[in-house]
């Protein structure tokens, strides 16, 4: 039986700080990548992987009973990699090879090369459909595993996301949880300027999902949201997490619209790590 890793609160906070540190250092070293996209989801992934939610075993990445996490917003790869390294899927030192020729830590996640990666993503909009496939397989096989999919708010402009929302809602897939990382910004501008999503929770609920909106940087609220999601049986659950793009680094938080896909300049890294406290 797989058990989740459950760290006490103080340890969880320290883990989140290390993940932030690894996101910043790995992308700056690579000279490219998406740190701000990764930083907005740190508390969510920290609770998911280390706060008693996801059941997994890094020594058996394909365990049939494992819970699945799919990062649909694949450009958040540096965040996922930092979490997977912390979880023990590969050595933390490998993070320094991000985006280099020969490294399994590619610019976007590649499930064939890196253990712990459940889906190859990077072309937006596709992860939730794949998650539905895993959830249906669990039903067919009588497995109790749960499927978690993280989608970005800009990504939600993709029509496939709504096809998947419609299908999962209509089928009452209670073993499927969507986490919507609502950091408010896409590549060139605020999501609210490009394609306003509100009333987002109403829309998702109208598609047959149970939904709630939380502060995606509050460990308390994230923990409570996952507990709530696990308690809902009859419908898929959506956790709309209001987040800050670039969270924890003032340089990025100040002008989130200007930092999509850009690493922190080397001479700003020391200050960033100081702010992160790791």
């Amino acid at each position, binding site marked *: 039986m797989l058990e989740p890793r459950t760290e006490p609160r103080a340890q969880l906070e320290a883990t989140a700080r290390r993940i932030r540190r690894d996101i910043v250092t790995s992308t700056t070293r690579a000279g490219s990548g998406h740190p701000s996209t990764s930083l907005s989801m740190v508390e969510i992934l920290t609770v998911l992987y280390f706060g008693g939610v996801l059941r997994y075993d890094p020594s058996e990445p394909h365990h049939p009973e494992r819970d699945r996490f799919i990062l649909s917003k694949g450009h958040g790869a540096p965040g996922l990699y930092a979490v997977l390294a912390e979880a023990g899927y590969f050595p933390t030192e490998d993070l320094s090879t991000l985006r280099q020729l020969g490294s399994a830590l590619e610019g976007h996640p590649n499930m064939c090369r890196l253990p712990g990666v459940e889906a190859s993503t990077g072309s937006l909009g596709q992860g939730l459909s794949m998650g539905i496939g895993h959830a*249906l397989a669990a039903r067919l096989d009588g497995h109790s595993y749960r499927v978690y999919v993280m989608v970005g708010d800009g990504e939600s402009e993709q029509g496939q996301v709504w096809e*998947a929302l419609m299908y999962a809602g209509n089928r009452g897939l209670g073993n499927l949880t969507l986490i919507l990382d609502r950091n408010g910004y896409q590549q060139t501008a605020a999501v609210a300027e490009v394609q306003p999503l509100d009333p987002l929770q109403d829309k998702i609920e109208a598609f047959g999902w149970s939904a709630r909106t939380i502060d995606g940087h509050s460990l308390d609220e994230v923990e409570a949201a996952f507990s709530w999601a696990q308690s809902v049986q009859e419908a898929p659950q959506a956790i709309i997490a209001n987040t800050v793009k670039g969270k924890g680094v003032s340089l990025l938080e100040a002008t989130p619209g200007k930092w999509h896909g850009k690493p922190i300049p080397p001479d700003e890294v020391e200050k960033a790590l100081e702010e992160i406290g790791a």
Partner: protein
Amino acid sequence: MTLGLSHIELEDGQPTRLAFGEALADAGVNEAIVVLDGDVHNSTYTGLFKERYPERFFNVGIAESNLVGIAAGLAASGKVPVVSSFSIFLLANAFDQIRMSIAFPNQNVKLVGTHAGISIGEDGPSQMGIEDVALACALPGFTVIVPADGASTRAATAAMLEREGPTFLRCGRPAVPVIYEDVTDFHVGKANQLREGSDITIIANGVMVAMALDAAAALASEGVEARVLDMHTVKPIDTEAIERAANETGGIVVAEEHIAYGGLGATVALAAAERAPTRMAFVDIGDTYATSGKPQELLRQYGLTPEAIADQARHVLKA
């Protein structure tokens, strides 16, 4: 393999989509197989599987992107998903999903496109998959199969399900002539030689195989012996059969129900150019969309006839 009679009338055999549907339902005893539908299962005949195994049948609705993505997830959790819809809706509407969710991570998903080619007839060009083979062949790692008749479609379906890896199987709407009475030795990637000949080789697949046999019969009456190859697998192509054809006969005519680009003709030409350059000619739809019409009228209108194949053979031999 036993050869039956070939006919240019379309109506006397079985539609390849029906043969696929029957073979799939028979294969359903394997509990790993799940079938996904874009709400066309009464057209693709995956409804036959649905009747027997409703718990493993998913009608995802008219949403090909989601359809393909769900199949990828099922495959990643150990299922063998068979996704079926009209060929062009599947390949063109969901191409990026096929690329990212299936081809790139090499997922064991089987895509079956029915209503391929212009021989679907009256429904017209919006429904006609004439670029589908090119799209499928453009995906690294994909196997692409275009069977000629009912018996070979049954064999191709079974072979596809036994093999690991992403596959595209192309089926048509109308009843097609019987080429094989039975097929016991269908091998993916290996052409079937239907007729021996040393003057010229005709390589065809799908509905064009029957026409190739008729063209060969016509040529024989003129003293020209044509070798006929059913090249049911476009990818991986049988390079050895092509090399032998190029070396042992006076040239190659390729016939397919597809545009001139990226399909069987282009794939055979690439193999021949690399291994044994020879005179070649091509019978295909060219570079155009078709119109509505009866299947037989359309095939004639767009030059997909035994006469056109024979003409190209004579042209190659004269050069």
